[in-house]
């Protein structure tokens, strides 16, 4: 099912994100067990320094964050890490009703950043690749996010044997040569988003589960996975004109009242425009087209 994202709930201009939950609504009794929306904050790598300066963002970082920033060797890594920390702090602060400096992070057992237990149980996930930084936030359940350049970079072609199943490899190899790296990137982001939503990331081998119907309504078949996805795990793959492909996987909170699948509404947020009024390169990285599906 292809969706044009201008029909989804894109926050207009510099307005606040379209869906803002109060902490009580997130944490209290009656929390909806189905993730019905996912907020996707995006920031172009080219806008990071401008946004950082306008927000005076480093004043809100923890000592650990600043130390880690100085340890990164590559300038691009520092820039993307900085952008990711900004987007995460500011996006979550809006939902938590607090200041960015008051948002406290921990690492979960798999090493992925998570909110400190003193906060309401929002879930979020970060990704960054050349040119774009993203942060997905959901009110309940778990979310996984990945972004890659589109088509995949050439060196990724070396990895088809560890990323794709035999069936997926046949699908990719049957495509015209100039489309194969595009298909590889689409498989990659869906797989990484899915494994991140499970809380496993690369610990769940990418060639151990399969994506089918990738161009229509992608589904994931993972009968042997050690961690089972909750019923209704939603998948959305999105394309932007900046040459990126992104995928979001949303796993509903488990529970007896959990309904079956429902469409996940993706709210796109231009982080530079929303946080600082800066209309820069980020507009180009916002996806313009999406395809949704679910795990089977």
């Amino acid at each position, binding site marked *: 099912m292809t969706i044009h994202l201008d029909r989804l709930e894109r926050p207009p201009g510099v307005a606040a994100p379209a869906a803002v939950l109060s902490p009580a609504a997130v944490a209290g009794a009656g929390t909806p067990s189905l993730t019905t929306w996912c907020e996707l904050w995006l920031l172009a790598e080219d806008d990071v320094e401008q946004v950082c300066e306008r927000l005076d963002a480093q004043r809100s970082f923890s000592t650990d964050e600043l130390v*880690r920033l100085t*340890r*990164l*060797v*590559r300038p691009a*890594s520092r820039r993307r*890490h900085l952008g990711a920390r900004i987007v995460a702090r500011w996006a979550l602060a809006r939902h938590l009703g607090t200041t960015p400096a008051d948002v406290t992070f921990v690492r979960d057992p798999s*090493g992925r950043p998570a909110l400190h237990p003193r906060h309401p149980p929002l879930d979020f996930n970060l990704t*960054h*690749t050349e040119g774009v930084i993203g942060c997905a936030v959901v009110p309940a359940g778990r979310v996984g996010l*990945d972004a*890659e350049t589109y088509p995949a*970079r050439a*060196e*990724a072609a*070396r*990895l088809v044997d*560890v*990323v794709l199943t035999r069936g997926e490899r046949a699908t990719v190899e049957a495509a015209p040569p100039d489309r194969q790296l595009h298909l590889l990137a689409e498989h*990659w982001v869906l797989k*990484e988003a899915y494994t991140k939503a499970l809380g496993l*990331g*690369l*610990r769940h*081998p990418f060639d151990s589960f399969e994506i089918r119907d990738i161009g229509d309504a992608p589904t994931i078949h993972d009968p042997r996975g050690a961690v089972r996805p909750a019923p209704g795990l939603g998948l959305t793959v999105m394309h932007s004109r900046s040459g990126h492909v992104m995928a979001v996987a949303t796993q509903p909170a488990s529970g007896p009242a959990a309904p079956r699948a429902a469409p996940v509404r993706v709210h796109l947020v231009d982080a530079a425009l929303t946080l600082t009024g800066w209309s820069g390169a980020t507009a180009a990285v916002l996806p313009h087209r999406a395809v949704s599906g679910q795990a089977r």
Partner: protein
Amino acid sequence: MTISAAISGRPSERARDGEPAVQPLADSVVGWLTRWVADRLDIAAEHVQLDWEIADLDLDSTEVLILVTDVMHELAVLVSPGEVLGHRSLATLGAALSERVASAAALRPSRRPLSRTA
């Protein structure tokens, strides 16, 4: 010493009692890992510190999988992405790979590795 020489177990590089020369081999494996990281980060190998945390290398998922593939091809042993990410530092990853390479070498002392030398 090259990794292939260590694995192939040429007499001059093996202990007199016939056991694999583990320390030189470990040095070679760690040296290979150091050069791999230096190449990927585009820095001189002498600037790579073995106490660096894997997370601080900021390898993206593609790079982690490339590392796993290169380990398989260059060192002729298997390692999973999860194992790589589970190591706290380059030193512990290097030590684990060295042990694995030594075990593989002990099992096939006369066999040359599949890959080119480091």
